[in-house]
């Protein structure tokens, strides 16, 4: 198990390297001078030059890149050009909201999707099944920012049940924290719920045709147990794959929803960073997001082994 973990982490390194390289060079191509943007239009040429030198923006590209890489490997991601904090501080302070949002969205997605998917599989071909499929199609097709607007219109503006936008950290109390996250979590979670429901349905259908289900019924096991104990355990592997992928997607796709609901998460950090040419932030945040991806992928693989003993990662007997 340990060697496998190590190998996977090792394999992740080239990916991190490539992603950071790609983003670095993309940013360099971006027109617009950070120094100018920071100081504003009235700055003199000298002042801009000074700042450029300070920020080492006048060095050749490859030198800037290696400087950055060198520092990054030592854990120093530099200072944000705009905010008064180091990149690492910025990332850490923005991490909380994104993680909360992601977890809540995933919980909503799974809670909706699993029962509906199982129901659709059990009643295959019926009106229930077709309705579930129709809803999942709709859920997958509405862009999340559109759904956000719609939710705001109904729940915040018309019915005044939930706040339009904003954020409160967990330290302000659980309900305070959650009430700002409910609408965005729904906006994000719906599309994922649709995908998970579809996969649940198709995985359950396949499993329900298996011989061991026939055996379980022949033993007199109650239908409820046949579905939840025998079938679901076996169907869970592909379902878990989709849940893992969706969680990954959540970490990234939060950008636009965070922007609409004014949630100070990583997504918003990156969007603002790109708009403001805050290179250091974008570099650092990209690195973080990529690393999170790799890590979550690994965690999901570990989970496979627990769910399905045939897939255990250590050597078989």
């Amino acid at each position, binding site marked *: 198990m340990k060697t496998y973990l190590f190998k996977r982490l090792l394999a992740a390194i080239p990916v991190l390297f490539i992603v950071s390289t790609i983003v670095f060079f993309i940013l360099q191509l971006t027109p617009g001078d950070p120094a100018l943007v920071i100081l504003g239009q009235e700055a003199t040429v000298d002042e801009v030059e000074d700042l450029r030198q300070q920020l080492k923006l006048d060095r050749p590209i490859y030198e800037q890149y290696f400087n950055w890489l060198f520092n990054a490997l030592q854990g120093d991601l530099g200072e944000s050009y705009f905010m008064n904090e180091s990149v690492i501080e910025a990332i850490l302070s923005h991490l909380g909201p994104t993680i909360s949002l992601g977890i809540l969205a995933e919980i909503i997605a799974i809670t909706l999707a699993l029962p509906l998917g199982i129901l659709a599989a059990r009643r295959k071909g019926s009106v229930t099944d077709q309705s579930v499929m129709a809803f999942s199609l709709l859920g997958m097709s509405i862009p999340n920012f559109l759904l956000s607007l719609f939710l705001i219109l109904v729940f915040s503006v018309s019915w005044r049940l939930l706040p339009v936008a904003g954020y409160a950290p967990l330290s302000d109390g659980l309900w305070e924290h959650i009430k700002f996250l409910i609408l965005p979590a729904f906006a994000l979670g719906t599309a994922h719920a649709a995908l998970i429901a579809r996969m649940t349905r198709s995985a359950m259908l396949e499993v329900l045709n298996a011989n061991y289900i026939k055996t*379980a*019924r*022949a*033993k007199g096991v109650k239908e409820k147990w046949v579905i939840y104990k025998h079938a679901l355990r*076996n169907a869970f592997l592909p379902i878990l794959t989709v849940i893992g992928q969706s969680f990954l997607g959540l970490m990234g796709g939060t950008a636009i929803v965070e922007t609409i609901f004014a949630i100070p998460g990583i997504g918003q950090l990156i969007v603002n960073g790109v708009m403001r040419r805050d290179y250091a932030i974008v570099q650092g945040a990209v690195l973080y997001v990529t690393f999170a991806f790799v890590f979550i992928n690994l965690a999901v693989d570990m989970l496979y082994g627990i769910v399905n003993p045939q897939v255990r990662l250590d050597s078989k007997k």
Partner: protein
Amino acid sequence: MGGATMDKEPILEVKELKTSFRTERGKVTAVDGVSFDVFKGEILGVVGESGCGKSATAQSILRLYDEKQAIHEGEICFEGKELLSLRPSEMDKVRGNDISMIFQDPLSSLNPVFTIGNQIAEAILTHKNVSKRETYARVLELLRLTGIPAPEKRIHEYPHELSGGMRQRVMIAMALACESKVMIADEPTTALDVTIQAQIMSMIVELNQKLDMGVILITHDLGVVAEVCTRVVVMYLGQIVEEADVKSLFTRPLHPYTQGLMKSIAQLDCDRSQPLHVIKGTVPSLHQIPEGCRFAPRCPFADDLCRSKMPPLEQYGTGQKTRCWHAATISEEGEAIRA
């Protein structure tokens, strides 16, 4: 040959069982008016080619089909209960408890994510309220009963960690968990190596004798039938065409289909220069069942009566039944096959 003392009263009576399925191409009747009895402690063989309805009959007895797709008619009487009219919760109590079943491919028939101990224990706990310790002891006992060595170790193993023969023993152990009165064995050895086949069959016979448990043995292998069964039922295209005790079936097969089957078995000492006997033609699809006697298109003795009217299943002598208009005349010309 198997079978302990047989009572006169049957424990399971199948009466005019019909099972039809709704398919894209219309209604298909896989089991068409099948009737037979199973007596306590006997081994009843159900023989036929693939598609003749023997598996469908077995699964219908336990009502394993999704009843939105499958329609059952007729009666199945077991210990005073009419199985086809039981509610699902009541039927659950019969399955695995009064009547159990083992299937053809033990690898796909066992749930890959649970240990075999867990699965056998489930067979017990579904029907009996027993403590964990008692269950554990009983599981070990069942594993020993079915000849699985080192049961304490095996209990924690997963199906993919066992060999084919071992897995089938586990299936049998599950079937025995509640001391059922009847065990239905649906081609239990077809998916196994020949040497293992013999072991499993002899274990089934042993259990039949020791526990006085009735067995419905579904197979296409006449050799096994000759070795093991007390009585036999031959099926063709959804119907029973002959029923007899095993000796009579092999010495004096009444139905042309049975005779054809007997002749097709290659004997060790047969004349090598002769071609193998084949029943001419192929089994028709269930969507295109012929008029009249279903075997008529392939029967060497068929005439216009056969092709227009379906013969009923009738008694001939003691304990032998056949579905043929000309059984009386054919049997005089019939050949004796050594059992």
